């Protein structure tokens, strides 16, 4: 069983981005970039399935600019077997990403695709569901547990108020939530080994997919900032303020 894992290069989760002063976007130049944290979880889960013998090959894919290579090398160092980079503009829309992934799925014929549930830059939380829709595959989103049983995927999902388990025929799409696993750190020997693993580069424009954006950004603004608060000295003062100033209790 082959598993496809799309991974996205995003601004590192520790960094607080700034909106550009002309309101056209956020300042990303020179910022530390990393693999989207949810995608690390997806890679980890795929690699674990291969280590258990439930999967035979893990193929990492990234769609974006040349530097997304680094993200793919990270996936290879974590244990993915090979990688595919599809060159496009920076950060194509989920619809375009899903269409490109569909082409790759038709070529690679995996039985599972593991994605992150959302990318932490644009927080769209859409690509996995869209790929599932385009392929007509079942989807197990926001997964906190995945088991392959009798040729089906049993996926436990985080939902409002708790969790639920669904059983999906294969091939299927799974999107990883935070508690699916704790991704490993790549060891130095594995980082060295990853440099020799195959990484194929394709041109997005050659895949016969319409990448035209459907959304244009009119403006990007800072969220309204909160007015500065005060430090209270005692519980009594806090209760007094909440009662008489804020009037919330």
């Amino acid at each position, binding site marked *: 069983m082959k598993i496809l894992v799309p991974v996205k290069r995003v601004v590192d989760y520790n960094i607080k981005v700034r909106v550009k002063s002309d309101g056209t976007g956020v300042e990303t130049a020179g910022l530390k970039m990393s693999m989207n944290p949810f995608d690390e979880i997806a890679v980890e889960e795929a690699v674990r399935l291969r280590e258990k013998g439930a999967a035979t090959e893990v193929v990492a894919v990234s769609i974006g600019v040349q530097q997304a290579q680094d993200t793919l090398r990270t996936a290879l160092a974590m244990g993915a077997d090979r990688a595919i980079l599809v060159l496009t503009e920076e950060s194509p829309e989920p619809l375009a990403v899903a269409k490109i992934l569909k082409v790759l799925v038709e070529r690679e014929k995996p039985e599972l695709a593991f994605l992150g549930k959302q990318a932490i830059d644009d927080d769209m939380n*859409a690509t996995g569901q869209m790929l599932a829709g385009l392929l007509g595959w079942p989807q197990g989103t926001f997964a906190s547990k995945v088991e392959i049983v009798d040729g089906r995927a049993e996926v436990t999902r985080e*939902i409002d108020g708790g969790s639920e388990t669904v059983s999906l025929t294969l091939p299927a799409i799974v999107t990883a939530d935070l508690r699916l696993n704790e991704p490993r750190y790549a060891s130095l020997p594995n980082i060295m080994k990853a440099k020799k693993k195959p990484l194929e580069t394709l041109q997005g424009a050659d895949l016969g997919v319409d990448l035209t954006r459907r959304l244009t950004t009119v403006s990007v603004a800072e969220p309204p900032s909160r007015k500065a608060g005060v430090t209270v000295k005692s519980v009594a003062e806090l209760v007094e303020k909440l009662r008489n100033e804020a009037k919330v209790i």
Partner: protein
Amino acid sequence: MTVLVFVETEAGQVRQASRSAIAAAEKLGDVHALVVGDAAASEAAAAAAAKVPGVAKVLKAGADVLAHDLAEPLADLIVSLAGNYTHLLAASSAIGKNVMPRVAALLDVQPIPDVMAIVDADTFVRPIYAGNALATVKSSDAKKVLTIRAASFDPAPAEGGSAPVEAVNVTVQDTTSRFVSQHTPTSDRPELESARVIVSGGRGLQSGENFHKYLEPLADKLGAAIGASRVAVDSGYVPNDCQVGQTGKIVAPELYIAVGISGAIQHLAGMKDSKVIVAINKDPEAPIVQVADYSLIGDLFEIVPELTAAL
């Protein structure tokens, strides 16, 4: 213009998040509400949806295949109804986020998740980078597929309307996905997303036992919901659906009391639109203190019991 809103109900009422989606839809045009379930559940849900003022018509889809809101048949159903509508909406709930992008893909549309404001029929405001920036985006798609951030729209009332109900002929089928089981512990506490007051705990609490011993009595006094940071959830102090943040629940209560929570970017993303924020933390430099209206610096194990007693 007529817009379709997928509506969730619970215990005979339309969920607050769905009523926020209805309120958002009213800004766009006439509102048709879609409810689904097996025969009995869809009947009850239709009755609840019909009572929401602002709903012009209820579409009731009752069939066993729709009993568990599985994305595959539900998306096909919504797509089959889409022809009549300019906009398709749902709350940014677990179900909305699961289904609507699939609907969008089937319609060849780029969805717009987590809408916080509607500028006009094509233009919407949504958060990016954990809410550290707000993007105004304009869609060129003929149909728009939106999920609505509940905290950004005052919900439509639950009662007062009497919309007609129309049954939808359900022909969708699905054999790829099967519901197995659900684990949704019931609680007497208000839901996080609709609570007026939230008491939230983090790593500072140190254990689930301490949540029980320190936070629950405070929440009881305030009639509050209990929230948590990711660390508190990952450490097993509280169940996963308590998580507030970029990747958990987005909340905006009147009062949010953060106890032993540092205020990481990802946590702030979920609660910084709260009306009043209180931080109880031993570290005056913690980022939560910068967004809090009132901060009390000290040991939570002393402060929380004192506060509970003072209320």
